[in-house]
């Protein structure tokens, strides 16, 4: 119970909508608030936060997409004007300023699309959207200190913390069904 409270599972239950926009699949997750508390704290402290989104399709719910499309954003918060700015680094670089928190998140999500190339009309597929913050590498510790300090360092060494990440899966979809509801 405590573990669940302290380390909630990164898989977030969200309603995923998908629509066809020409030859692109566009995702819609109205309840997704990927700017978590700690990320917002960093943004309010004037620090820019890098996000990577990966979107891909899979034949079933539990498998991983083989060649997902990747999108990189940098989000920052104007500490005087108290508005958000988003820079889309790749693909199609673009930046936009004076956004509210929800508008900044919406800009990122609206930017994300997946080509329908290679998906047959009646093929059932699941959509997976992953996001995570990418932190700069932490400063490394010089070896030294007392034996106790070294032991603590060894036992506490761990992978770089992901402050905010999540995976959203939706489906099954098919292009033919999406074309009907367009």
């Amino acid at each position, binding site marked *: 119970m*405590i573990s669940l*409270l*302290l*380390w909630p599972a990164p898989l977030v239950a969200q309603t995923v909508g998908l629509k066809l926009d020409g030859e692109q699949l566009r995702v819609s997750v109205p309840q997704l608030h990927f700017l*978590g*508390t*700690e990320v917002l704290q960093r943004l309010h*402290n*004037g*620090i*820019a936060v890098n996000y990577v989104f990966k979107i891909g399709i899979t034949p079933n719910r539990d498998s991983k997409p083989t060649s997902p499309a990747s999108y990189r954003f*940098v989000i*920052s*918060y*104007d*500490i*005087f004007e108290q*508005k958000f*700015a988003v*820079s*889309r*680094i790749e693909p199609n*670089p*673009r*930046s936009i*300023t004076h956004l509210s928190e929800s508008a900044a998140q919406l800009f990122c999500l609206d930017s994300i699309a997946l080509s329908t190339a290679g998906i047959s009309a009646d093929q059932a597929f699941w959509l997976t959207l992953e996001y995570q913050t990418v932190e*700069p590498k*932490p*400063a*490394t*510790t*010089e070896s*030294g*200190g007392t034996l*106790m*300090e070294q032991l*603590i*360092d060894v036992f*506490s060494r761990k992978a770089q913390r992901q402050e905010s990440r999540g995976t959203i899966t939706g489906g099954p979809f098919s292009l033919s069904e999406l074309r009907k509801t367009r």
Partner: protein
Amino acid sequence: MKLRAIALLLSLLAASAIARGQASATIEKTEISGISEDSFSAALRGDLQKLVGQSYDEKAATQIAERIHTELPEYVVTSTTAAGSQPGRVVLVFAVAHNINARYIVESVDLKGMDKSKLSEGLWTDMQKMVGHPVDDAAADQFRERMATEIKNPPHIRRTVERGNDPQHVRILYEAVDRNSIGFGGTGGYHSRQKFSGRASASYTFYGFMGVKVDGINDSSNLLERYAGFQYGAWSAYKRVRFNADYSSFRAQWSPGTLQAASAAGTSADFYRLRDTIEPSAKITVTPGFHITLGVTASQLQMQEPVSHFESVRTANGKADYSFYLSSSEKHELAGSYDIHVAGDTLGGSASFTRHLLDQSYNFKLKGKDPTSQFAFPDGHRISVDFQLGRITGSAPMFERFSLGSPHTLTGWNKYDISPLGASRMAYGSVTYGNKYISTNFESGSVWNDGQSKTLYNSVGLNLLLGNILHLPQPFRFLLNAAVPGIGIPLRKNDVRPVFTLGGGI
């Protein structure tokens, strides 16, 4: 109303004068912050050069910023001006960055939670070179890495950008935050009427989100009894919530004054010999300056009379505390808390009461605190005003009752002279002036029971920071400052016996 209109008019005139002054300023040079100018097209670089020597024109600067954005659409581009080398000249800066805050000029670079002396002079000098230039995330992060390299056993260093005192100016702050650490500490104090109190602590913190601690305590200053024993605690923090669980086991010792008063009042049955307590709680950070703490306390008391037996006291606890600055200069600070303990009803236990405690304070610093200071005593002059109000309804155990007359409140008085059995009502106020060398205060307060008359007690106090007064070298300065010898004088006509105190923490 008339004055406001005149003030508004003067402000508008001043603003237009500034705008005219800036408009007529000559551009001394242009600077690109955030990326290399080589990223621009040759035409754009040429047009940037043409601006030098011309009068500053905000519209022209905005057009150049838009052209940069067209060439580099992934960046946020803004133009700003910095003072030139001579009056009437400006440096036109184009901040090209992913972080929108790159448009602001760095006003100062400071440290928090670590001492400047841990850094080399060269690094500190290089860091200060950011002042006067737009925020450059890459450069600022490189300094953080250099700091981690220079400091032995470096803490995790967090960088923040805060609003500065001047418009469009910011402060860059490097703050040492918890990583894995083992900490040892202690506090000790002496009151000439209540004798020694002390606490020794050992703690282990895991990456700032989990920790354990143990405290050895022998204290006569906080409660009506002297209590001695150990307190064990564990905590874990996740996002805005900090879970805490404490277990303590204390042996109680009662002063002769309290025993005599209880004997006279026929309340000796209120005394306990042992007090074991389990106290889980959750502290929620609503905003950085506002917290709510919710928890329960279950105490088991080994009562002494009429025969040895156990009683339990269970309370549900709530506390809201806040602190915030009234100005960006952080000179004026308001802080306070409201604490409530409720016992009885569905919680079970033998006691039924409600305890309210309101504590409010205002601090005014005449000079900003040195952010690099390790000490609890600010260098600058300061004035603080504090008041507390307490109220208990029902029958509270001894450890919940209010008292005044300790090293912390009404220093010139002894709590066993004022109210040896504690009381259900309390009002207290103090005004303190302090500086680098001394701290002096006037305190006034009263404790009483519902329906009884109130007596107001006043005292004045003086504490000395001997290490600073004697200008001793470290670590003697730190140790003597921590000892902080003091005197409290009760303000009354007869029997004016001062109370001497020592106290501090390391």
